[in-house]
């Protein structure tokens, strides 16, 4: 079952007439909120973040902070939320920005068992004037990271962190995910979901994932899987309408199984039998990547680096 949240978000954002910026702005009251905690005695961390609209940045923290969340928000329309709980040596952080005051069309964004209200009206205004969240995480503490963003611009710089899992879902956004250094632990699951988005992921090989799941609805998508590969992995890539480019490093064996007929798949350097595309080094390669590819319409291009 594909994750439909981003689509719903994208729909909501588009219904709200996202880029029209026609409504006059009420007086703005910008504030800076910060919540930071040192890493003492926390062995693992779970982070959940919900952001309706704005600019999101995630980076490794300067030492000694377990997390350092900075939120710039317009207090006349939004309020930052953060909740911290700890069970034993496992901590859980939740960060969100919620709409306040009179809202004429609140949409509720849900992530697991908590939800945040976002006024659709507030989603109209894009970019920096909506504020931003800068989240920094401790590089050494194993972390499960869940990010759910609506019409936000997301810039995730995740190299060198210790991510055990990453779930990222976005509605209508511009996303750039980069792992410029290897993830310090194996990542069990890397799940990326994008609605109507411009989506770029760089050096995903450095994420050291066991399984990659990508769901894209509409848009231009780049999945660059280069990086440090030390173990085999599987990937399930589903794409709606749009252009998908997958880059794989030359030194790993890659096998692509095409699960739908209605796509044009261009994979130079692959040997094709029926709906299966395999690199020539598949039998000899120590590290292998198996990709299951489903797409509705559009073109898929696989490049070997």
């Amino acid at each position: 079952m594909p994750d439909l949240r981003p689509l719903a978000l994208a729909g909501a954002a588009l219904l709200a007439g996202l880029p029209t910026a026609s409504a006059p702005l009420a007086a703005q009251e910008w504030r800076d909120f910060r919540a930071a905690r040192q890493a003492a005695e926390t062995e693992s961390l779970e982070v959940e973040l919900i952001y309706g609209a704005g600019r999101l940045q995630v980076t490794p923290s300067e030492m000694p902070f377990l997390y350092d969340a900075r939120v710039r928000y317009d207090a006349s329309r939004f309020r930052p939320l953060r909740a911290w709980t700890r069970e034993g040596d496992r901590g859980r952080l939740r960060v969100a920005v919620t709409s306040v005051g009179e809202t004429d069309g609140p949409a509720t964004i849900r992530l697991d068992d908590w939800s945040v209200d976002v006024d659709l009206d507030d989603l109209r205004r894009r970019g920096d004037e909506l504020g931003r969240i800068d989240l920094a995480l401790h590089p050494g503490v194993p972390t499960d990271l869940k990010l759910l963003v609506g019409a936000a611009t997301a810039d995730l710089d995740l190299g060198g962190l210790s991510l055990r899992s990453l779930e990222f879902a976005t509605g209508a956004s511009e996303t750039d995910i980069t792992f410029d250094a290897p993830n310090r632990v194996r990542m069990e699951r890397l799940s990326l979901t994008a609605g109507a988005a411009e989506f770029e992921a760089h050096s995903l090989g450095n994420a050291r994932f066991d399984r990659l799941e990508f769901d894209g609805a509409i848009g231009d998508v780049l999945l660059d899987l280069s990086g440090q590969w030390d173990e085999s992995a599987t990937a399930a890539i589903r794409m709606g309408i749009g252009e998908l480019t997958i880059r794989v490093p030359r030194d790993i064996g890659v096998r692509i199984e095409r699960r739908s007929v209605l796509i044009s798949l261009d994979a130079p350097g692959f040997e094709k039998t029926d709906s299966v595309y395999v690199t020539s080094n598949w039998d000899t390669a120590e590290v292998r990547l198996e990709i299951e590819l489903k797409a509705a319409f559009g073109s898929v291009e696989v490049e070997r680096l």
Partner: protein
Amino acid sequence: MMSSFFRRAPLAAACTALAVLPATRVAVGQQAAQEAGAQIRIERSAVTLSSGDGGRAALELGLADDSEHVIAFADGAISLDGDRLGGYEPGGTLVTAWRAFLRDQAGAEGAPLRRGLEELVGTLESLGRELGGAEGESSRALGLGIAGILGMRQTAAVEETAEVEGPGGARLSIAPGGVRFDELVGQLDRLRDAMARLGGAADGSADRLALIVHDDFSVDAGDVIGGNLALLDGTLRLAGQVAGDVLVLDGHLLLADGARVEGDVLQVGGDVDVAETALVTGEILSDFPSPSATATTGRAPPSAAERAPAPPSVERVRETWESRERGFFGRIAHNFGHATEELLGALGAFIILGVLGLLLVYFARARLETVADTVRHEFARSFAMGLAGEVLFFPALLILAVLVITWPIVPFFVLATGLAMVVGYLAVAHGAGEMFAQRRYRYEWLERLRRSNSYYYVLSGLVLLLLPFAATAILWIGGGTVDFFRGLLAFVACVATWILMTAGFGAVLLTRVGSRSVVVDWRGDGPTLDPLVDVEPSAGPAGPAASGGAGAGDRDAAPSAAGPAAADVEDAADRDREDTGRSPEVGGPDEEERPHA
């Protein structure tokens, strides 16, 4: 808890304190009270940095009280306004630290420089302890000298605190001494209001207030504060331990190396610096107005001085945005909005029609192909038929409405007509897609788009038919300059769509929803066969429905698309045989179905 404290604080605390304090005023500090908060502003500064071991490294300060001061390291001697404070090792720790400080502060003015100097005083003090000996002495002397210039209370003088009875009877300390509790109630009020923003996080913070700091102060290593600490103003250098929370209303909190806070650090103003080995067991939480209204990357929390001009800057930025909305960017955004809306409309139409088309191909491919072929090869006739159908729609509806007994049929009639239009449009799309597929293109990417099955015909045909609408949408981006072309294109697109839909509708009527073929080969040079439809022109029994429309099921039973092709063959044969110029429907259609073009 805290809020309950603060709620009663202004009243209860003020009352209690006022009643109790006069009696318990104790240990007022040596410094006169009027000196409290008498910070001297730095108005000018200049840095001189000469290279070489003995090179001069000096800081010149011009203060608000018109005094000028020069602190200089030169030729192994440290001087303040010309007086020698001590010596230093060339290339040693002290001069290195001083030069690093000057490099950092070069160009800094006013409050930031003052803060830097205040920190430097603390650093020099600890450096003095670390270094020991003559250089340690110099370091301390320099620290004292700078503190003197800045009007800072020297650590030695401010260590005294006044112990008073706080609200609820608990003992609490005020630092530096010399201030009555009731003088601070206003600030505690502000602290309460500001803390309310931090919500539940601040619960219980103020009940256990053990120390209120209202001006420069330091808690040294080894000192323990037994409860919460509130910093109202001034610079607090904390190297010791706080058992509770630290609340910062304003001023500058420096958590030095080795400092330990068991609770949270809650900040609603001022700034907080945390040294590498300082430990905050709880959370560092802050919330205050942004220094500037645009959401920039600014990582460092703003100082009180930097925050001061915030309100006007908020106003200014707001005005900028409003004027933009009315101006150039607003129009661009507006146009993009229109373009996006219309493009999404076209996309929506494509998706809905596409799904219908795919279903139609799946369930009634033969019929759809028959209709499509009819439109392609008998366009004029189909159009005329469609036009007649459309013209007759309302009279027919009227008749059905007038003959009361036929009322139940009306919805079906309307629905059937609508469906016929849609099916007709999809058949046109199929035909267009097929034509597109049969063309050869010079460009490779176009060749790659060519596919030869009905699914692709329908989808690519829809793309072709909806393309003018998408183009119209995109023209919105051009704004007013291309208004005329956009209108023209929209008009052409609508007319073309109406013509095609009418033709499709006509073809549906002509073929009785694709159940029989009426295609005539006007060129007369043999049967028209679709090279790309999977044709085996078997002369099998799948001929045209013989008796007017009764053969609805026959065609579906025919294998795949062989039907229309076979029908073409026979139609052509019929035409050859009869060669009368009359339309060659075998089924002998009703008169009204034959409005020849």
